[in-house]
């Protein structure tokens, strides 16, 4: 039998029992819609979570830190206290020296290797009569912060001596120290192209505060990344190094002690894990936000399977409905089956016809279920986003852009799955039809 003839015959057979096909398909509609809605919800949650997590860092960046020997301190310990000639644990010590950076730069897929350092002391900012906290004063050995994937909402991302580029949230850290109770706090100042004072503080041996003032022009304000850069202020590395030398009271030689931290920028986010592994094998410590993401993704995959499984229970009930309808139909059409065989239908033809009808019911139900599931997901999405946006505005944080998400693959999967379910439930009745003895089928009353 030709596929097109088979297809036409199946359509004709389904068409002549519209009411029964429709009633049976409703079960599949409900099951498929449940699968689509629940899996969409799980995917939406995942997207939502991942979106928020993008704040933990650019996925194309790897943070690399040196491995100190047994005698070494923490990552941010004042490196100057370490013996630079480090004899005790030379084998285990992997410092981020110039040659180390070249080693990392040689890994395929690495675009940039950018050393950076934090200011060890504490610092505040002053602008007119306002004071501001400095959450992180970061020195970066690059002329352009765009190399770290940062963008400016105002001004430039280039770094030069005497200027500073600040994260957008750093502006909100300004407060009026002379504010009286009950007075409205001032709005965050617009610092772009303004001169600010950086007040670095250290304590001398007698515990007395020593201040060092730097006058800096704000040449750029960064766009929000929901990460560290939002609260940071950026200077050229040399300037931060000078400040750290002032705090330590000793010279820092990065060639001997190595850098405290290096940002490795890779071409593609999906290379990050692999390159991080290679860097770890070289003996350094590498951290990539991908690792967090992976763990979170696998959690959501489990969630999708569980949600999908709940929906699948509804589909199972529908499958029993299809099996029942097909069994009834085959009983009613026993003589027709006998006739088909008498006029030359093979067992395989009969099997194909009835399997096709069962699959057709599954497919019709699948189309209905996908349509209803998709519409419901869209509706719920709108409601959920409104609700979550309210929550976000009350509790702070960014509102989600998506709550329930139906990807194209889910729609395709639901259609294929419901069709296969239909076919499987029709298998037993169809096999019975195919193996009927023609003479008995013809004489069936």
């Amino acid at each position: 039998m030709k596929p097109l003839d088979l297809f036409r015959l199946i359509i004709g057979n389904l068409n002549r029992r519209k009411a029964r096909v429709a009633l049976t398909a409703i079960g599949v509609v409900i099951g498929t819609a449940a699968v689509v809605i629940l899996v969409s919800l799980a995917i939406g949650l995942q997207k939502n979570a991942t979106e928020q997590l993008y704040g933990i860092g650019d996925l194309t960046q790897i943070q690399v830190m040196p491995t100190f020997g047994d005698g070494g301190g923490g990552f941010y310990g004042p490196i100057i206290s370490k013996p630079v000639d480090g004899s005790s644990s030379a084998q285990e010590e992997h410092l981020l020296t110039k040659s180390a950076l070249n080693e990392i730069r040689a890994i395929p897929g690495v675009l940039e290797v950018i050393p950076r350092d934090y200011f060890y002391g504490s610092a505040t900012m002053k602008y007119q009569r306002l004071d501001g906290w400095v959450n992180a004063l970061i020195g970066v050995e690059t002329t352009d912060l765009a190399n770290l994937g940062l963008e400016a909402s105002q001004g430039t991302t280039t770094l030069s001596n005497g200027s500073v580029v600040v994260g957008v949230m750093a502006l909100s850290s300004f407060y009026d120290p002379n504010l009286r109770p009950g007075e409205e706090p001032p709005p965050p100042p617009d610092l772009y192209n303004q001169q600010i004072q950086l007040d670095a503080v250290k304590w001398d041996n007698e515990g007395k505060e020593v201040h060092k003032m730097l006058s800096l022009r704000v040449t750029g304000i960064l766009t929000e990344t929901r990460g560290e850069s939002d609260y940071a202020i950026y200077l050229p590395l040399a300037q931060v190094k000078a400040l750290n030398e002032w705090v330590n009271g000793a010279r820092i030689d990065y060639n001997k002690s190595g850098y405290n931290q290096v940002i490795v920028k890779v071409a593609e986010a999906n290379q990050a894990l692999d390159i991080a592994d290679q860097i770890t094998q070289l003996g350094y410590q590498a951290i990539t936000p991908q690792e967090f993401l992976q763990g979170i993704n696998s959690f959501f995959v489990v969630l999708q399977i569980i949600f999908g499984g709940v929906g699948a229970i509804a589909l199972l009930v529908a499958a029993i409905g299809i099996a029942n309808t097909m069994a009834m139909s085959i009983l009613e059409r026993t003589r027709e089956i006998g006739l088909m065989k008498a006029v030359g239908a093979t067992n395989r033809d009969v099997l194909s016809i009835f399997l096709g009808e069962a699959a057709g019911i599954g497919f019709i139900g699948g189309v209905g279920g996908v349509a209803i599931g998709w519409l419901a997901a869209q509706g719920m999405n709108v409601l959920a986003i409104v609700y979550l946006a309210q929550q976000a505005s009350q509790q702070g944080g960014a509102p989600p852009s998506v709550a329930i998400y139906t990807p194209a693959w889910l729609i395709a999967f639901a259609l294929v799955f419901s069709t296969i379910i239909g076919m499987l439930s029709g298998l037993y009745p169809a096999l019975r039809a195919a193996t009927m003895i023609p003479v008995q089928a013809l004489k069936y009353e």
Partner: protein
Amino acid sequence: MTGPFIRIFGLARHYQMGGTTVRALDGVNVDIESHTFTVVMGPSGSGKSSLLYLLGGLDRPTAGEIWVNGERLDTMDENQLAVFRRRAMGFIFQSFNLVQSMSAAENVAFPMQFAGVPAMRRTERSHDLLKQVGLADRSHHKPSELSGGQQQRVAIARALVNDPALILADEPTGNLDTSSGASIMQMLADLHRAGRTVLVVTHDARMMRFATHKIFLLDGHVVSEAEYQSATLDAMSDS
């Protein structure tokens, strides 16, 4: 081909019914030449329908051999039988067995789907055949819109659709009034005259007029016409 068109040898068909074995056919030997009009007569329960279904490859014998046109049916598998039926056999049933949801033309064309005949050719052929049985103007009617005689004519057209050498008819006039029955008999006779081998199972004595060959069955055995007459007359006088 050597030997007769149909050769049935030692054919037996036994059923289990409850605890007892029903011997529908028990050691039947029949030879039928091609281009004959064979009438199989017998009272109900004589095994005549069993003979027809075994000959058509719709049932399996308990024992014996069935040869049609040089091919042995009793050793074929299901698939081979299906192909054989579509190639060499045309069936006509007492209850017509038309698909109610299909039009007359679709019913006639139905077997050609399984033979893989292109759709255009199917339409052409079914209309030709309906014209041949005098139902050209009824081709779009559903079986429920046709009389019994018309339905049986659609069934005859369907039996002819794959141009089979052998036409098997099981009580073709059993559900029809006298005049419709007569016209169906005439139609079968015409098929025979056109060169086909026709085998009709019936207990309608009028069919005998057309027969070139007669087979009488009693209790699963082939008997002579004289034995058959006396047995059926005895039965009549007994009752």
